[in-house]
């Protein structure tokens, strides 16, 4: 891992603290270079050099990943373009099993000698690691697919869209927000193209082309008389799509207290609404702490699903591989073995999926050459499965991996990462209004905000972007200073209603962190709006003088 190559999106002035630090691996390049591709026959030849070199040194299994990782950022604030960055990272990682242990090495020099040396180093490291081995690696069987390829079904490659179009969009967004009352706005477009080639001694040669896009803005509104300020972030989702995500279509809008977006995003409209809502937030009523029924929009609920369902069902956490950093999990194997652990109410069905079109996690094959699919994790409220990779499958009695292996770069070693993990829509034809009308005292939450959860994923606290009080089945006005705290199992058991598939939308994150050295993973979480009864809400207002 070349941490010195990380480019952090800092230096963006005041808004920087409101934007998560985004680590990007790569070197700045000419944007036109992003459209060039590496020939597949050349990649196959390089892969074979590594496979043969590792085998000759005693590896019993080898896989090779040749990756070209392209990123483009456009960052603006108010009427200025702050930063345009194009990065590229190209190289190869070789992973082997020798003496029953894993070994890994990587190189950005792609001549035959350097490739063979990397493969030999991986074998040497595996042999060194085997000195402290307690149990040899057991890989689930995997057939070779021969020479195959997969491409994300995008309509418009974001790297081909002229820079002027992107800059004009963002400056237009900023202007719309300022006109509707914002004092400050930072907006950005973050685009990713992963060109990945995988080969293994199982006989697979897999070429894949993956695209992701994240348009976002961060608005601040200041009340000069009180000195208070409020923020409103965009309601977009990062998506596994091309630039078509920004092509506005009326059928992809959902009219609620604010416009919500499904599959396409109207950034201008959202910025205009955001400028006004930041002002409304300043004048909103501060919430009274207590128990409320919560109506959670998918633009908010994705993050709760991610933290309280996605992470605790990662098998590497359950087994203790993340004990020193990300943590372990309350969903221990005995709970799964009992086949009756009540993770949630009977209407809670959670599905893991690596194939969902437009999602961040969608690929044809994972980073150890396993064809991807979908499977139940929570079925009718009961824990039924986890997320696994090839060297874990035997622990669950599975004879195949679930395809959850991922590395964020050619220079990072692949390990178990979260697939898309989504709450299935309700089956009883309910609309969002049906959910709201039964609530006496509640809060409707839209957009993601502050988030925190313990290392075994029991206790969490979430904020949001927009909070609306519900009184006797009706929206009664905006609230502020809202955060809710719950225990994962109690929370999912308090789920009393889920809107149907008409409301189903994806949310997600580009930079889910795990591992040491840390790696980031992009993952989506879908849901329809859902209701949770009697959740503890705290008031977050404080005074520091």
């Amino acid at each position, binding site marked *: 891992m*070349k*941490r*010195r*190559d990380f480019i952090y999106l800092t*230096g963006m*002035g*005041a808004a920087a*603290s409101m934007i998560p630090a985004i680590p990007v691996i790569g*070197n*700045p*390049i*000419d944007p036109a270079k992003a459209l060039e591709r590496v020939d597949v026959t050349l990649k196959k030849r390089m892969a074979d050099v590594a496979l043969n070199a590792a085998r000759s040194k005693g590896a019993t299994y080898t896989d090779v990943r040749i990756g070209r990782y392209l990123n483009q950022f456009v960052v603006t604030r108010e009427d200025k*373009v*702050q930063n*345009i*960055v194009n990065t590229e990272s190209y190289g190869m990682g070789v992973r082997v099993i020798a003496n029953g*242990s*894993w070994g890994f090495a*990587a190189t*950005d020099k792609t001549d035959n000698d350097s490739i063979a040396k990397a493969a030999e180093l991986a074998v040497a*490291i595996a042999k*060194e*690691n085997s*000195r*402290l*081995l*307690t149990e040899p690696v057991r890989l689930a069987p995997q057939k070779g697919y021969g020479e195959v390829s997969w491409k994300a079904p995008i309509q418009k490659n974001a790297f081909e869209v002229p820079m002027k179009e992107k*800059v004009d969009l963002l400056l237009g967004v900023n202007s719309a927000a300022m006109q509707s009352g914002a*004092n*400050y706005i930072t907006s950005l477009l973050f685009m990713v193209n992963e060109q990945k080639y995988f080969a293994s001694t199982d006989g697979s040669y897999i070429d894949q082309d993956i695209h992701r896009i994240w348009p976002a803005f961060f608005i601040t509104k*200041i009340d*000069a*008389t*009180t*000195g208070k*300020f409020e923020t409103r972030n965009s309601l977009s989702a990062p998506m596994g799509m091309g630039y078509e995500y920004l092509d506005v279509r009326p059928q992809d809008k959902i009219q609620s207290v604010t416009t919500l977006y499904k599959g396409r995003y109207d950034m201008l409209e959202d910025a205009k609404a955001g400028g006004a809502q930041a002002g409304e937030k300043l004048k909103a009523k501060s919430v009274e702490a207590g128990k409320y029924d919560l109506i959670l929009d998918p633009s908010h609920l994705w993050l709760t699903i991610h933290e309280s369902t996605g992470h605790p069902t990662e098998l590497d956490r359950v*087994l*203790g591989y993340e*004990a*020193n*950093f990300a*943590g*372990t999990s*309350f969903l221990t194997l005995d709970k799964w073995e009992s086949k009756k652990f009540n993770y949630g109410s009977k209407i809670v069905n959670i599905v893991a999926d690596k194939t969902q079109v437009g999602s961040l996690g969608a690929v044809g094959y994972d980073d150890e050459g396993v064809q991807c699919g979908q499977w139940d994790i929570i079925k009718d409220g009961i824990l039924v499965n986890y997320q696994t990779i090839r060297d874990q499958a035997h622990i669950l009695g599975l004879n195949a991996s679930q395809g959850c292996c991922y590395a964020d770069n050619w220079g990072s*070693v692949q390990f178990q990462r979260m697939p898309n993990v989504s709450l299935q829509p309700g089956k009883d034809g309910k609309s969002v209004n049906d959910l709201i009308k039964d609530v006496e005292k509640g809060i409707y939450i839209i957009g993601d905000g*502050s988030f925190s959860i*313990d*290392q075994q*994923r029991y*206790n969490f*606290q979430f904020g949001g972007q927009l909070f609306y009080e519900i009184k006797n089945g009706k929206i009664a006005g905006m609230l502020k200073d809202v*955060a809710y*705290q719950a225990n994962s199992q109690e929370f999912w058991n308090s789920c009393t209603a889920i809107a149907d598939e008409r409301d189903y939308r994806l949310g997600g994150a580009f930079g889910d962190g795990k591992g*040491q*050295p*840390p790696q980031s993973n992009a993952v989506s979480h879908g849901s329809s709006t859902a209701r949770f009864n009697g959740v503890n809400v*705290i008031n*977050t207002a*404080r005074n*520091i003088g």
Partner: protein
Amino acid sequence: MAILSKEEAKKILEKVVGFSKADGIEAGLNGGDGGNIRYARNSVSTAGEDSNVSLSVSVNFGKKSGAASINEFDDASLEKVVRRAEELAKLAPENPEFMDPLGPQTYGPEAKTFIESTAKITPEYRAQAAADSINPATKKDITAAGYLEDNRGFNAQMNSKGLFTYNQATGVNFTVTMRTNDGTGSGWVARNFNDVSKLNTAEASQIAIEKALQSRNAKAIEPGKYTVILEPNAASDLLSLMLNFNARQADEGRSFLSKKGGGTKLGEKLVDERVNIYTDPWNEEVPTANQAGGLPRKRMDLIKGGVVSNLFYDRYWAQQKGVEPTPFPGNRIMEGGNASIEDMIKDTKKGVLVTRFWYIRAVDPQTLLYTGLTRDGSFYIENGKIKHPIKNFRFNESPIIMLNNLETLGKQMRVASGGGPGGGGSALIPAMKIRDFTFSSLSDAV
């Protein structure tokens, strides 16, 4: 190749600057070697090494700028990277906030940031360090999960105004979590040094083992306001979040340092008068480079006697405000006291000892309210003694409120600030006793 000498770096950079046809050019050479070993379930899970040198070039035509980089250093490659940056600059929109390259500066002496013994760490050293941590765990029915990483690197920069800098540094960071095999106890320890001879993973691991054993079968106590004794890592977890004294944010009215009705809290009392926080590149425990971005670093107070002493101005904002720009600090130092953790426990009638915090996230940027949880060793103190381990708490607290509720300052310790492995730099932070720290709910997590 990974670590170039000052002369080697200068020679390459002079060529690069010489190739430029732009109005201005800034070139940076960074490189180094690093290694790591990770273990879990009492066995090594991954280990690796990397080596890298790269050249980044930024050029400008007026207020249009472009950047490019490369990892090849023959003359043709050096010229190519300059031309590529020039092409990008010509295509870029004007940035009204662009600042011309900085002229030559005068720097203080080089701090002792590069330690030969750290630069010479081998894969065998790392494997032994892991074994020294795993072996005592297995003897006590405990499972170890840990991570050690080390690096040795250099950076050099030169620009068309004649500025040149060169620095070298080494570092090593070690963390381990020890969990009892019955799943009821967990302990953690962290060590961060420039000089690996100060690192003893066996000694550090023993502390985490003891904490794991002592924290078994924790009891729940009611959430609420408690006196807490924060070990240096726990204190630093929260302090590091408040020390971004960004002047522009404060001036714009969207910072905890903004004042009602306009202006900033510069020169105003923010926290208890015993709080003194500063940066000093020449501190022997946490030495850092003598410059940042070409600006000379010097000892600078952030908080003196509880008063906000300085804010950070980047070059653009400094020009707007007619003040000197502030180099970004490489370390943070908070003055401590003489009390040991044991002394502070003895003086506590009722309180909580916190080893570390976890998953801290901002709740409100206006008040710097943060939420997070205790982890890996939380203990209830009664009448001057540790009474029993307690279940972990979620807190909702602001470091500003916390430093106003200061009771006692303890001894300083070097920590990796920023929490994660490798962290966001190093800090020298004391243990501290704080009254009325707000724990808002209980967690079942061990």
